[in-house]
């Protein structure tokens, strides 16, 4: 405590001397520093942090009857900000003080959010570690395991398989329908497609439980079907559709107009332009859209809760009998008061989290590039293809060859070639 105060006292005259000395003769204009780190900035930051912390310890320990870790942090942070503002004020003008303080606030906001992310992922993985260490956790279902059984008995194979089947059903519906609808929004302009776009945008934040309720109302109450994996797949697709459509729509809009116009100028019909130019160009973005939609769909509990029923046994048939997905299994595990069941819940949550993470990494690896930007491999392949084309053209037009009759035909197919490499990757 005293050491810090001495430090501060020692610093203050030095810091205060700066502007006072510069005051009489106006220095020549120097550009303002935007960002960057300076020694005095660093010193006042550390000083403010130390004194804020000490003052809070004093406040909590001696002066006032406060308690609680979070309250402590909040008070310490507020004190730190105030002291930092005062310290910076010794050597800077008001604008710079506000700038410095706000920079710290922005840093704090970002740090808070990312700390929360790390805490959430880390906590789930940490609590799930007990269950994850047992191999049977991945290969057995819960049919033979009661709530009191140890972790060496039973597992979540049924939930993993259920998630796989439901996601496959949802993807089988969402990908064709969603991509077709996104192409529709882009290719057939008009009042109706604008209306569809507005509806899709409004549905992006459709509460997932409402999607579940809708399938419940139509499929189970209306058509009299039983709860099954198929119904859950439908519910997940209702939820995923707007997300996939909207993300693909954005990607398709980014396809350079020059490419489409080039295809049009070559006389390609529109469906060929879409299939051979637009979709291949936007492929990585579309894959990202689908994968991110899948990541959202996989993690949804509430639509599955309403439509899939619950079972502890492995069920491979989505059309009959209840089926369980990973999030639903997590939800049911942690509702139990038994510590082993809760450990299983965390294990299943960690598996789910890992699944989402893997999907995310895949999306980043194949996505992340704008339309028309190729990987090195694709660029090499395109270059090779066009070199071959050049060679072929030279050969065709070489004097003395009687291939002139066939030339227009070959040329037409050759023009389609540059897009082909993008397609068969």
């Amino acid at each position: 405590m005293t050491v810090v105060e001495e430090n501060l006292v020692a610093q203050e005259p030095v810091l205060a001397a700066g502007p006072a000395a510069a005051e009489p003769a106006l220095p020549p204009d120097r550009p303002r520093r935007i960002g960057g780190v300076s020694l005095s900035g660093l010193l006042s930051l550390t000083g403010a942090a130390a004194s804020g912390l000490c003052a809070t310890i004093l406040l909590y320990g001696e002066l006032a009857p406060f308690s609680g870790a979070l309250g402590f942090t909040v008070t310490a942070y507020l004190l730190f900000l105030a002291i930092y503002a005062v310290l910076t004020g010794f050597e800077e003008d008001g604008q710079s003080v506000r700038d410095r303080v706000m920079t710290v606030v922005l840093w704090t906001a970002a740090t808070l959010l990312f700390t929360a992310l790390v805490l959430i992922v880390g906590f789930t993985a940490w609590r799930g570690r007990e269950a994850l260490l047992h191999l049977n956790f991945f290969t057995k279902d819960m049919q033979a395991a009661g709530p009191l059984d140890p972790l060496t008995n039973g597992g979540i194979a049924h939930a993993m398989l259920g998630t796989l089947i439901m996601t496959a059903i949802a993807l089988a519906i969402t990908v064709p329908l969603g991509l077709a609808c996104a192409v529709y929004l882009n290719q057939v302009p008009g009042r109706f497609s604008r209306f569809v776009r507005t509806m899709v945008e409004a549905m992006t934040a459709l509460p997932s439980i409402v999607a579940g309720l809708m399938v419940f109302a139509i499929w189970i109450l209306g058509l009299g079907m039983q709860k099954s994996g198929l119904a859950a797949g439908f519910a997940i697709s209702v939820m995923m559709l707007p997300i996939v459509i909207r993300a693909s729509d954005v990607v398709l809009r980014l396809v350079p107009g020059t490419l489409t116009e080039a295809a049009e100028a070559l006389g390609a019909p529109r469906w060929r332009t879409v299939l051979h130019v637009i979709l291949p160009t936007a492929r990585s973005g579309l894959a990202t859209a689908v994968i991110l939609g899948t990541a959202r769909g996989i993690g949804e509990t509430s639509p599955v809760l309403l439509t899939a029923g619950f079972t502890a046994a492995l069920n491979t048939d989505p059309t009959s009998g209840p089926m369980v997905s990973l999030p639903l299994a997590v939800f049911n595990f942690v509702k139990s008061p038994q510590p082993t069941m809760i450990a299983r819940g965390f294990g299943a949550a960690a598996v789910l989290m890992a699944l989402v993470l893997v999907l995310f990494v895949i999306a980043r690896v194949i996505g992340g590039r704008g339309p028309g930007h190729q990987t090195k491999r694709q660029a090499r392949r395109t270059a090779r293809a066009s070199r071959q084309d050049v060679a072929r053209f030279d050969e065709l037009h070489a004097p003395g060859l009687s291939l002139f009759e066939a030339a227009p035909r070959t040329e037409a197919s050759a023009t389609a070639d540059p897009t082909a490499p993008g397609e068969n990757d």
Partner: protein
Amino acid sequence: MASAHAESDRSDSDRPAPRRPYAARGLGDRIFRYQLTASGVVVLAVMAGVGLFLLLRAGQALKATGFSFLTTTEWQPDVHRFGIAAVLTGTLLIAVVAVTISVPLAIGTALFITDVAPRRLRYTLVTMVDLMAAVPSVVYGLWGLFFLQQHVIGLSRWLSTWLGWIPLFTVDGAQPGEPLASDSVYTASTFVAGIVVALMVAPIQCSVMREVFAQAPAGEREGAYALGATRWGMIRAVVLPYGRGGIIGGTMLGLGRALGETIAVYLIISPVFVIQPHILQTGANSVSSLIALHYGDASPFGMSALMAAGLALFLLTLAVNFTASSVVARSRSGAQSEA
């Protein structure tokens, strides 16, 4: 659509007009176009079906109660005494707490990513925000229930002790001076659920805002710097006014998500069927967790009542979303942004 076809056919046959890029030509194109339109119609039908079927199923319950559906707090559909006054207030309270916490976080993080963070870190940070948006809600629920709750109790007690004179922070049955008093009056509250939902919606809000902030014209930024602005001065004078549409739109989008959140809220709160304005006190409720709680043991009439509650939630989120998209579309930045 049909008139467009007729028009293109005529112009093709009459005179050699320049090709109209958007008119369908030839059989293949026409089939292709019909397929696309069909997919659009199917998607629209699915979206409209959500509202329609909920309304259809909810009709029975709504007819039985009439207007009192909006004013009753209890939920006993089998004796025809039910309404959404309590759950809807609970939903709104949780959403408001969530948005109050998440918006400063989201704006701060978005500004941090676009303007403060070291350039080489930006892509990583964007990825992390997107990843956070993809974390399943049940994982958030687990974290809130098993980790956050015990840490928040201290803050809750502190708030209710020192700010308890504000009605919102009052806790009935709290004994601030009693060191051995049970903490259970602070658990399972609107506040805890609100924090968890805030962390769920903050990344969504953040990515909308970041996209808009990043589009603030470079010329105007440099102009502000050239006039001697600090970085924060530039942000206040250029980025924030430019991104106002994105801030409002992102906030509303997050609000829409917060209103509909089910599992995380269900795991954390302990449901009560009274209007509970004390956000720090145990007991809260929301429409979606009501549905998740009662769908299993509901009679056919009870199911209809739940559908009515779902319909109310659906209409609420729809209204919020429409407001959000129209605000963004009308703003200056919305002219180019996709938000």
